């Protein structure tokens, strides 16, 4: 490793910290900039950052070790992050990973001697309809094949930039071809509904909102019975009301664009095609709860949209839809900034997202107090999902009566579904709430699927007998993900993939989640090796229930769902691989003494 001139480094890191006003609440931005500049945030750099921001070293180190895209060890100048999602595995991940290792001449977890390339794994990057996908030099590369991998690595070695390589491979549809995006990502917007992807005039919702009182705006949202689109389904109007009425300092509106649930990519397409609608929703919410600041928390995986989104914000400022006296409403001042994430599934949890925005590890907080009471910097904070805010804008623009016509019962409006896996037309669908899974499968062209994962790994694994269940809050709730598994797929290896995902994404704060995710993974390994017994199944169910009832946040409470829902709906798959003898444990003495035999040169006498 080349010697780093500490003195020079000190000056440079001071300068980086100064660009963020030396504020410790902007620590994520500072470490991201350091990571981008040096390909690492090393120990000496951590020292210097803590000095520049006058904060404890351990907090800086805690943050660096928390996020996927920050690394103490030096990464390549063109870091490759290949995502290991279940859908990627189904679409040829193994061959693509082997091609990366062969082309780069290194293994995953290593850096090439010339420090050009590094290979790392990461969780789902929101490209499930175009897998296998990787982030290379920060840009998404989708639909990878071994051939493409070889040509990409060759291109990087010959000095081409990732952007040049994207141009060569061809940019995607819609705004992916926008001059400020130029990405090879495709929207695959298969079906536009009448709420989110229908035509929208900039400012229409906001002008309507400011013609009403904030209370009337909230009343309209309440009457629409709009509920949180992230999956949990909390009534949006009620949340706005709580936040408006909360005592405290300034109020904040957060838009949660940290969609990390594998198989979910609805926010990506909304932000690509309808960013105005999302920002308009944030501004309307700002008016309703009397906030002056909006923050869009964008996951790092979507950084390729940043310049484009900043441009949209700038245009809205010019058009008078952001800034002082928004939409001509005297005294209503509101602006939006974008906070980048640094790679962590848990940051989609609202209190973890707030912690991250405050420059901390993305650990969830204890609740109460809820963010609407005490959120960002202790202020009342409204956190809504991207799709929720976009829908809220349309509700305010067109009225609750217009909105509730779509959907059914307590699940009003439309819902975006991101469909991936074994179907002919993967992509994004805007459908009325309340449709049965079977009908959706027909629409997306899924033939004879054996299973559907509704809501991603934290959701529900359903079999054919449940295909008449409906996508809505009262039945199958989903943040958008719908993953289809064809007849030939090995459900056990998919469940194992999900178990690995939760194990690596658990923030580690509480025991049931930190330990439970690891134990479940070990159980699956045991079963997959043919050593599973009946008792293992019983214990998985028992522990899964403990995780559900005692974990601190939604991650741990749902992390056992892949095992629990497959044990309920696909039990025979497990039964085929275990020994149905309650006295067997799967313990193998020969394996357990192998190391001792080697160390001593002795052998175990036959039992």
């Amino acid at each position, binding site marked *: 490793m080349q010697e780093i001139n500490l003195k020079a480094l000190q000056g440079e890191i001071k300068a980086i910290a100064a660009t963020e006003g030396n504020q410790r609440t902007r620590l994520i931005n500072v470490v991201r900039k350091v990571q981008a500049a040096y390909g690492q945030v090393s120990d000496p750099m951590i020292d210097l950052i803590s000095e520049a921001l006058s904060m404890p070293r351990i907090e800086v180190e805690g943050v660096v070790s928390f996020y996927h895209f920050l690394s103490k060890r030096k990464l390549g100048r063109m870091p490759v992050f290949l995502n290991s999602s279940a859908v990627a595995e189904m679409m040829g991940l193994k061959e693509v990973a082997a091609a990366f290792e062969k082309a780069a001449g290194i293994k995953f977890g290593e850096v090439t001697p010339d420090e050009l390339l590094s290979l790392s794994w990461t969780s789902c990057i929101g490209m499930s309809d175009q897998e296998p996908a990787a982030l290379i030099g920060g840009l998404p590369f989708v639909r990878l094949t071994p051939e493409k991998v070889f040509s990409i690595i060759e291109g990087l070695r010959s000095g081409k930039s990732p952007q040049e390589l994207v141009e060569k491979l061809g940019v995607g549809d819609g705004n992916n071809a926008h001059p400020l995006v130029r990405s090879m990502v495709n929207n695959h917007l298969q079906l536009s509904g009448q709420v989110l992807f229908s035509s929208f005039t900039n400012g229409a919702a906001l002008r309507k909102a400011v013609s009403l009182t904030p209370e009337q705006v909230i009343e309209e949202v309440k009457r629409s019975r709009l509920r949180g689109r992230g999956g949990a389904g909390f009534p949006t109007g009620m949340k706005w009301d709580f936040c408006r009425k909360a005592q405290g300092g300034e109020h904040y509106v957060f838009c949660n664009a940290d969609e990390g649930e594998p198989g979910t990519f609805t926010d990506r397409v909304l932000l690509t095609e309808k960013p105005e609608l999302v920002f308009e929703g944030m501004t309307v919410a700002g008016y309703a709860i009397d906030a002056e600041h909006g923050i869009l928390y964008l996951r790092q995986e979507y950084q390729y949209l940043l310049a484009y989104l900043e441009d949209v914000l700038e245009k809205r400022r010019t058009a008078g839809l952001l800034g002082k006296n928004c939409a001509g409403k005297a005294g209503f001042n509101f602006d939006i900034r974008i906070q980048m994430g640094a790679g962590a599934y848990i940051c989609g949890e609202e209190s973890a997202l707030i912690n991250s925005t405050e420059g901390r590890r993305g650990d969830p907080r204890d609740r109460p107090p809820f963010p609407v009471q005490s959120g960002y910097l202790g202020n009342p904070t409204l956190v809504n999902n991207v799709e929720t805010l976009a829908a809220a804008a349309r509700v305010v623009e067109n009225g609750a009566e217009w909105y509730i016509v779509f959907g059914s019962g307590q699940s009003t409006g439309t819902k975006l579904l991101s469909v991936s896996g074994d179907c002919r037309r993967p992509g994004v669908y805007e459908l009325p709430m309340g449709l049965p899974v079977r009908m959706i499968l027909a629409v997306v062209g899924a033939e004879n699927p054996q299973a559907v994962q509704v809501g991603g790994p934290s959701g529900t694994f359903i079999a054919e007998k449940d295909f008449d269940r409906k996508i809505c809050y009262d039945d199958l709730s989903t943040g958008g993900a719908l993953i289809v598994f064809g007849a030939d797929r090995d459900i056990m290896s998919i469940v194992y993939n999900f178990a690995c995902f939760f194990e690596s994404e658990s923030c580690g704060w509480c025991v049931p989640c930190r330990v439970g995710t690891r134990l479940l993974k070990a159980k699956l390994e045991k079963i997959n090796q043919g050593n599973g017994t009946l*008792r293992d199944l019983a214990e998985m169910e028992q522990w899964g229930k403990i995780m559900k009832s005692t974990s601190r946040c939604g991650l741990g409470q749902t992390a056992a769902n892949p095992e629990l829902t497959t044990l309920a709906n696909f039990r025979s798959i497990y039964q085929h691989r275990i020994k149905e003898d*309650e*006295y*067997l*444990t799967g*313990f193998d*003495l020969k*394996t*357990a*003494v*192998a*190391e*001792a*035999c*080697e*160390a*001593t*040169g*002795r052998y*175990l006498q036959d*039992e």
Partner: protein
Amino acid sequence: MVKAKIATTSLAGCFGCHMSILDIDERILKLAELVEFDKSPINDIKRFSGQCDVGLIEGGCCNHENVEVLRAFRKRCNILVSVGECALMGGLPALRNGIPMTECLKEAYLDGPSVVDGSIPNDPELPLILDKVYPCHEVVKIDYFLPGCPPSADLIWESLVGLLTGREADLPYELIKYD
């Protein structure tokens, strides 16, 4: 009435749980009315005389002999009870589980600062140590678990009498609370 037969053993444990069994004080006379001790360090009987009703296991498995003893207990005892932290979770001996076994051996017998002319112990009399310390239920089926380090005499007494007489054991919260 035919007395129930009971067997006990200490695997990778410290005999603390056995001390706790003896801690039932004068109740041991009542116990003697209820049971007959078979293989156990308490009476120093080395071999099973026949099938037993209850086996009490202290300690986890750290070497192949532990595994063999435990398997023999499973075979000879109708009901097997893990007694204490080490049997339940591996306990103190399992502290080595985070360190590869060969590394442990090297540090202890070859590279340690106080080692002179070291060699890894290799007498045929010594059991082979396992790659890690296993809790008993990972090696054989265990029917009941008594937590504690050690479980209190009252807990052992209550559970054992409950098991032997078929009445529901009276286990107030204080008996199984450890924080």
